[in-house]
């Protein structure tokens, strides 16, 4: 079970139980907050060269939190969702072949990014699976939207991973 207590089963059940769009967003916000706090704590533990990277990851989770908060505060969430799910997300399937590492005492930049990628991938898959098993409607739209957001985030991290790992860091 991952460290931040966000067990796959319990999260899934939580989301399954949620009835309204606000409740779903509330739960999603909780996940983002946990991730943000995780990275913030990690930043204090890693050596200085890696601090900037981890702080950026924390920032990104904060930004996600902000986006989802805005969506939750929107009086017409369903209407807003209709537009957001128009364009389907593209999954490059890259991170399928990376194991989620155990971060241990002194992770390096590659390990941190692999971890982040695995997290985004898991989240995306989770929301996608939920979207599949939900009948058509605003709830399904919301899950699709959340999956898309995680996928987009994953894509950004993949690019960053490539820049750092595959080209000498230049």
């Amino acid at each position, binding site marked *: 079970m991952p460290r931040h207590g966000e067990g796959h089963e319990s999260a899934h059940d939580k989301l399954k139980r949620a009835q309204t769009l606000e409740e779903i967003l509330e739960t999603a916000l909780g996940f983002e907050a946990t991730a943000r706090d995780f990275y913030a704590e990690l930043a204090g533990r890693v*050596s*200085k*060269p*890696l*601090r*900037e*990277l981890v702080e950026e990851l924390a920032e990104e989770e904060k930004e996600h939190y902000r986006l989802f908060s805005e969506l939750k505060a929107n009086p017409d969430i369903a209407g807003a969702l209709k537009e957001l799910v128009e364009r389907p997300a*593209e999954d*490059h*399937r*890259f991170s*399928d*072949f*990376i*194991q989620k*590492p155990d971060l241990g005492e002194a992770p390096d*930049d*590659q*390990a941190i990014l*692999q971890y982040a990628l695995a997290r985004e991938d898991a989240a995306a898959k989770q929301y996608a699976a939920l979207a599949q098993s939900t009948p058509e409607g605003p709830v399904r739209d919301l899950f699709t939207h959340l999956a898309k957001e995680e996928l987009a985030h994953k*894509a950004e991290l*993949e*690019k960053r991973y*490539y*820049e*750092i*790992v*595959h*080209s*000498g*860091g*230049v």
Partner: protein
Amino acid sequence: MSDIAPKYKGSMLRPLKALSFLFREPATLPMRPRPAAKVYRGFHLNDWEKCVGCATCQQICDNDAIRMVHIPALPSDPAKGIRPRRPAIDYGRCCWCALCVDICPTGSLSMSREYIHVSRDVDSYFILPDEEGMHGVRYPQGWAKDENADLLDLKRQEMPEEPPQERADNFSEICEGYDPQTAMLEASRCIQCGMCHDACPAHMHAPEYIRAIFEGDFEKSVAEIYRTNPFPQVCGRVCTHRCETACSIGKRGEPVAIRWLKRAAVDNVPQDRTIAIALKDKAKTKTGKRVAIAGAGPAGLTAAFDLAKLGHEVTVYEEKPRPGGMMRYGIPEYRLPYERIDADIAVIEAAGVKIRCNTKLGRDVTMAQLKGQADAVLLSTGLNKGRSTRIPGSDHPQVRAAVDLLARITLGEAFDIPASAVVIGGGNVAFDIARSLARLQRRAFGKVEVTVLALEERDKMLADEEEVIESAQEGVKLINGRGPKQVVIEGDALKGLETVKCLSIFDEQGRFHPRYDETDVMFHPAQMVIEAIGQMSDVSFLGEDLTEQLEWSRGRIRIDEAGRTSVPWLWAAGDLVKGPDVISAIATGHAAAASIHAALMGETEAREAK
């Protein structure tokens, strides 16, 4: 007139002959200008998209009629050899000989079939030709670039090479180099536009050293080279030649062989003369300042050379048994023989630089010790570790990093040569290890079984084209468009590598973001998997305190443009900050040395002023 001979007077009817002209078409020239011939040399046209502002037209013009005009809005790309200037022509001086058109390297200049301009305004005779024509009427093209009339030699002198069957099982140098005559012929192709100088990270004085070779003065060429580059033997063989990418002749033909010419210059001057030339500007007095440099690679040694010539006492610490860094331990001998590296380093040592090998920072000497015995410290330890894909199974002992294996081969350390191997990666390092391994396999087993697995398609590979071609001649297989999935292990033995198809590499913004099709899986049997995907640095020798003290950016030590870190006595250069390639290392080495010198002498001056 009465004595005119009758035969000239003719008959009385003679005047009637004039009647034959009555119905003849008169030869009248129309008032309107007649269309000019197809190769007419009329007013100039210039295709601004093709024009790169090289100013060769200005050079050939008989009458000084052409002046280059700087236009800030135009694209400027020194790496591609594009300048934001265009030729302006003074029609008071131009003689319409079209030599400018014939010599234009890009073929952007041509002449139209327009030939009339009448104006009392003298300034209107000074034009900036574009594709619209002098009066914007788009007359058809007249005299334009033609195979016969072209004044440039678009073909390069061939570099003689060892054929595959002779080189496939040994590490002797493949390229034989230009002899002096061939070098002079190749040097004569240069039109002295200077794009090479702009594109070079170290801004080498290439037009000057090429001109010296053309004049047959190889010593002068070496002098011009040493103004910016203390590694001519190395760069003359393995530089990434940004100069040739920017070369104007290369726009339509083969670029001037600027790299081979550098090699020809230094190959044809005896070593003792090279040392004398290189040390000509060495300071006569010592400054009393000491500099410690970590890492005897091109960056560290360039900085050492500059600082030693300025009179400082320089000591370089190198963890490996011999100096050279990636030049020696990363590049195989068939591309860069060790004795050539030694020759360049000998010149640097002749300047007074002390090199202590087998001395590892963090183990044999600490940063505190360096700081104690020097007034300035330069870190140029490079990217000495290989990255790993960390795919499942990649922690098996037979999964190796390319940079490690290449270093072992140079060190002469034996390792079990695998009968079959796959290399993950498509850059020069991947081919370096693949071709080195091929040679070792041929010696050990009599045959080659190495496969390079690159993400990129064949026409977009990151490695030099010559590497790809030559490796194929040596028996190395290449499979394009595949990414690593997992290492297959049975029990303790490594069986091979599974790959998936790579559908695309770059996203819409051009960022590196491969897309895979995980249903298309291939298995590549192998006894060893070698990863050549990228490199990283190990700066753990800095220690916790110094690491905290320094400022970092994107995982690297933060430096200013000259390489100075946030800690006042510490500089960084080489692959740690830029590149990775030799000429960038040299450029950063120069910058760091200049900054160190200014800092050290500034201190002295400040103290002396008190």
